[in-house]
């Protein structure tokens, strides 16, 4: 079943999205990364993928791809914490622009989408098995 490959790209993409979300949550309070700067929220960019099909068909569908992982351009937060080691001269610390609620919602969406692609895989398998019954 050709749709198995397509669903696999969906599973792949949603997995990567989960990884990025996990990264965001883990670094929600990182004020000094390896480059010395405050962590910036990351997000994935999905694009639909078209590739050469085998065996014909009107369109050449290839599922989805994570075309990029970009940094969220929204402004970082500034919290007043005078005793903090990374505080600037005014006592403000620049905190990551990670919003926990947003990350939770994203995670639920990624999880549901992952499940849906799994359902597609199961359906394709059931169809293929039924076709094989013809050879009984």
């Amino acid at each position, binding site marked *: 079943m050709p749709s198995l490959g397509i669903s696999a790209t*969906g599973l792949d993409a949603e997995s990567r999205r989960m990884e990025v979300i996990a990264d965001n949550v883990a670094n929600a309070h990182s004020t000094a990364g390896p480059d010395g700067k405050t962590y910036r929220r990351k997000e994935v960019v999905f694009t639909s993928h078209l590739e050469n099909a085998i065996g014909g068909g009107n369109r050449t569908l290839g599922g989805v791809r994570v075309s990029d992982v970009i940094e969220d351009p929204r402004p970082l937060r500034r919290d007043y914490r005078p005793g903090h080691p990374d505080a600037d001269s005014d006592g403000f610390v620049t905190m990551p622009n990670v919003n926990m609620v947003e990350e939770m919602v994203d995670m639920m969406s990624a999880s549901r989408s992952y499940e*849906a692609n799994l359902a597609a895989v199961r359906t*394709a398998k059931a*169809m293929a098995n039924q076709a094989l019954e013809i050879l009984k």
Partner: protein
Amino acid sequence: MDASVGLLNKILDCTAMRQKVLAHNLANVNTPGYKRMDVEFRAALNAAIENPDIPGEKPMVVTDTASPGRFDGNNVSLQKELGEMNENALLFQFAARAINLKFDGLRKAARGRS
């Protein structure tokens, strides 16, 4: 034993193609701006009923711009898509079993004699 094996075969082709398109929709449920696609095969099947031996019309992949989109322009509804996929799979499985029945009849007729 009659021409409907051709029709059932066409149903298998059409539903197999539709499964691919629906899977593509599900994979792209979170792609910004993506518009869902579907397969029109009623015309192809009706043509197959009229003239079973002629390949005739092919099923068409169409883009669905009518369904409402979300804020990022994506108009794939997870629930709807899964529902369509289940219905489609059922039709495929029905056609496969029906073909098997037809062949069964021929096999019995061929072997059960003399």
